[in-house]
């Protein structure tokens, strides 16, 4: 595929390519998020009953996101794209702190440390891509209104180890969940907008 044959004016990455890269990145971010959750769960959460406490503890639970195929297919693509943008933005701040605070966990394995940093970087990269996609699809200004603040930093620094570990567990549980939503919604949007629901 020649890049910008004879220097044409509107030489840009196609919408299909943008979606391909966004889906590949969201898939990768979710794989990392699953791995880091599983590693943390195996190493620090066994037998502490964290799952029962982690119910309804995500800072993004205020964002109404589709919970089944029908809802996801009925929502207009602009609204779903804005939701994805909103969830991604809501994770910028916690991921910055996760990458730094995770260093303080006792004997945290190198793989957890590296993944926390990698997820933070790739999440920013995906946000850049999503803003580009939304900019391409929406004629108007990219809406900034969807955002859910995170106030969890103090709980990652609690002196009591059990409480602090639960705070990490809950954050990683929510990251796994939200990154899976983003990956799933982007795959849906790609099939809808690029492949006319015929993936």
């Amino acid at each position, binding site marked *: 595929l020649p890049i910008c044959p004879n220097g044409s004016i509107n030489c840009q990455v196609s919408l299909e390519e943008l979606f391909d890269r966004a889906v590949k990145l969201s898939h990768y971010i979710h794989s990392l998020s699953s791995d880091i959750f599983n590693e943390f769960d195996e190493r620090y959460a066994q037998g502490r009953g964290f799952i029962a406490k*982690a119910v309804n503890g995500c800072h993004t639970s205020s964002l109404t996101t589709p*919970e*089944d*195929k029908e809802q996801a297919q009925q929502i207009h693509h602009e609204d779903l794209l804005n939701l994805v943008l909103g969830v991604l933005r809501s994770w910028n701040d916690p991921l910055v702190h996760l990458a730094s605070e995770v260093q303080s966990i006792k004997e945290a394995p190198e793989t957890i440390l590296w993944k926390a940093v990698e997820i933070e970087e790739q999440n920013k990269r995906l946000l850049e891509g999503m803003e580009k996609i939304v900019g391409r699809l929406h004629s108007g200004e990219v809406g900034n209104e969807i955002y859910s603040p995170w106030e969890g930093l103090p709980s990652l620094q609690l002196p009591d180890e059990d409480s602090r570990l639960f705070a990490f567990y809950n954050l990683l549980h929510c990251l796994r969940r939200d990154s*899976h939503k983003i990956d*799933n919604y982007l795959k849906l949007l790609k099939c809808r907008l690029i492949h006319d629901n015929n993936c």
Partner: protein
Amino acid sequence: SPPEKPTIIKCRSPEKETFTCWWKPGSNGGHPTNHTLLYSKEGEEKVYECPDYKTAGPNSCYFDKKHTSFWTIYNITVRATNEIGSNVSDPHYVDVTYIVQPDPPVNITLELKKSVNRKPYLVLTWSPPPLADVRSGWLTLEYELRLKPEEGEEWETIFVGQQTQCKMFSLNPGKRYIVQIHCKPDHHGSWSEWSPEMYIQIPTDFRVKD
């Protein structure tokens, strides 16, 4: 005596749209016992009863699309009751996202072909299980195939990602191979059963040229 507490043994979603849970009753304490499945959903106080005890057979509860939500934790218990008293199972926490086990792939074809420079190879093609809606992108499946010479011991397994076809070059001339394929959702859930065994005879001239 009151019935023993039942045990929830498995929950499964075949296509990431509905799911079913099964339980194993304990002893009925010598009295006719009935079972009630109750569940609550993350972020809600309300407790619901199983919407459908029939569709999936005895000791089961079937949740149709309307009753199935993703990325949310179901807290499920089963209560056994007889005239003496009742007993409740341990709670079973389920996020349907993680219990998807698809049916095996279908329409598997095996075909021996010769490439441009007359090099023979085997082409396998297959389709996703009918129940799975991969077209909309709601469910994305990955595939893995395994093959071995008929009398061989060791399976050779090949992960092929999301493709629905695969070319095999390095096969043993003159051998009869068994081939099977299975699939799994792209992130969470478990592998389907293997597809039924298929056989292919590799001709003796299936040789790599000098």
